[in-house]
């Protein structure tokens, strides 16, 4: 098991790994996009609906980017996995909410929160991996955008309007987190990737006196990672 993509093939992320990760992300972000599309009214009346519309557009960008930046290959295992993922993403209105509409919105926000926080695709890139690789750049952009996209969900889920049902909200978010994390890790394990090892890496502070390791390339379009 390794915490990163690899071993590299001619300096690139193996196509199977690209395919499987992108298929997972397209499945999850696609489901979120569809659910947002249904939830956004034709005419916007509240500020949070504007945020939701913005999210919808950003999710579309992520889907388009993944489709074009990935080196796809045929993966016979994907059929079953995609079915499994799609079932998991189905809406699950939260019990304990004021009404079914609120319960559905909480679930949608919880799913989005889990997707944007648990999944860290750029953290799978080997250290020092070149910025100009389109797949790597797509992973970085998706993770960077996720940090911003999650803010709308945080505002909604932590907001005063849900304070009366805070326990139900917290339970729903934890449940979506567990679900997304489990499926994401299962998919990674199928490629011998285990992200738990990332915390065991020697901090750079303790590498003084040793030869400089390959440093991360200076970032171009996005400041991080």
């Amino acid at each position, binding site marked *: 098991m390794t915490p990163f993509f690899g071993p590299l093939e001619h300096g690139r992320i193996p196509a199977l790994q690209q395919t499987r990760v992108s298929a997972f992300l397209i499945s999850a972000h696609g489901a979120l996009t569809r659910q947002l599309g249904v939830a956004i009214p034709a005419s916007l009346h509240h500020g949070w609906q504007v945020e939701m519309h913005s999210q919808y557009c950003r999710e579309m960008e992520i889907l388009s980017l993944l489709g074009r930046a990935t080196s796809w290959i045929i993966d016979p295992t994907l059929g079953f996995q995609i079915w499994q993922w799609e079932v998991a993403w189905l809406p699950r209105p939260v019990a304990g909410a004021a009404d079914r509409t609120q319960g559905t919105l909480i679930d949608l926000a919880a799913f989005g929160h889990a997707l944007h926080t648990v999944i860290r695709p750029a953290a799978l890139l080997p250290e020092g991996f070149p910025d100009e690789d389109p797949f790597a750049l797509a992973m970085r952009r998706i993770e960077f955008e996720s940090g911003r996209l999650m803010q709308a969900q945080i505002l909604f889920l932590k907001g005063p309007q849900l304070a009366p049902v805070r326990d139900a909200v917290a339970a729903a978010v934890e449940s979506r987190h567990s679900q997304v994390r489990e499926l994401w890790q299962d998919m990674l394990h199928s490629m011998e990737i285990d992200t738990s090892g990332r915390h065991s890496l020697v901090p750079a502070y303790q590498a*003084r006196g040793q030869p400089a390791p390959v440093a991360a390339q200076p970032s171009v379009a996005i400041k991080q990672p």
Partner: protein
Amino acid sequence: MPWLECNSRRIHYELAGPPNGPACVLVNGLTQYVRLWHPFRDALVAKGFQVVSFDMLGQGQSDKPSLFIHQDDQVEVLGRLIEKLGDRPIFVAGISFGGVVALRYAIDHGDKIAGLVPMSSFAEIPAQLYMLGAALRSGLILGGTSFLQDLLFPMNFSSEWLDSMRHLIDLARHRGWLANDVYALQNLMESFLEFEPLTDQLSAIRLPTMILTGEYDFLTPRPLQESLRAHIPDSALVIIPRAYHAFTLEKPALTAYLVTHFAEDVMAGRWRGKGSIWVAPENVGGELTPFPEGFDHMRAIPVQTQAPELAPQRKATAS
């Protein structure tokens, strides 16, 4: 790898050193994780301490609650770890955010530990710190963990140290980015939104307390440490020369030396805090010296009764 269960949450911790010696529990700063303590921890272990370090809720490998993290929960985790250490001298050292957790623990459970070391810490959030914290939170939200680290590097370290680490800064940023999650850091920061000053409760800390502060720390500057000194009866303030906020990383050996010096004094019954003020040595093995009488330790400028003579150029300008 040891884990602690606390209220259905899993806490990752590490134990190092002899199991029968005095113990020292280290409490992380905001973006810290267990691995970062290793040089500091090893220096304490070499002095015969058993050292416990742990990732707080929301950090490193410990569970990361998705929406809310309460400081009370962090204090409870610290308490559970201290309970596991049994009956022996136990010292608690926390830096910055971790210092707040350590202070809160000591206010309620000071009888369970032998000594306390708040480092670069605070008991209240004045306007400067509040606005800095808010700006750091905005930086995290808008620019992610890497941008937060970009802001923290120059706040935490000296130019000399940053220069010497220049070839490793990208790697340091990357490793810190790998270990931290945006939402978890945000939750940790937002656990201060309902923070009530601890100042009025500090007098309840009756145990020996060594307050460590960096000479040049502008993130949690001297007045915040002074407030701790003024309110904790058996405390002493120790100023580390040329240090900034994160001296446990920049000067791990010296900081560990100071902590062991303090612990040995406490265990030998030699410790006399009495609100005294000291200057730490520049290097391991040096002596602590009392802050010079006749000077105000709150000022960056040595305020004397007789004004120093102005340089010629300044004289001309002044005239």
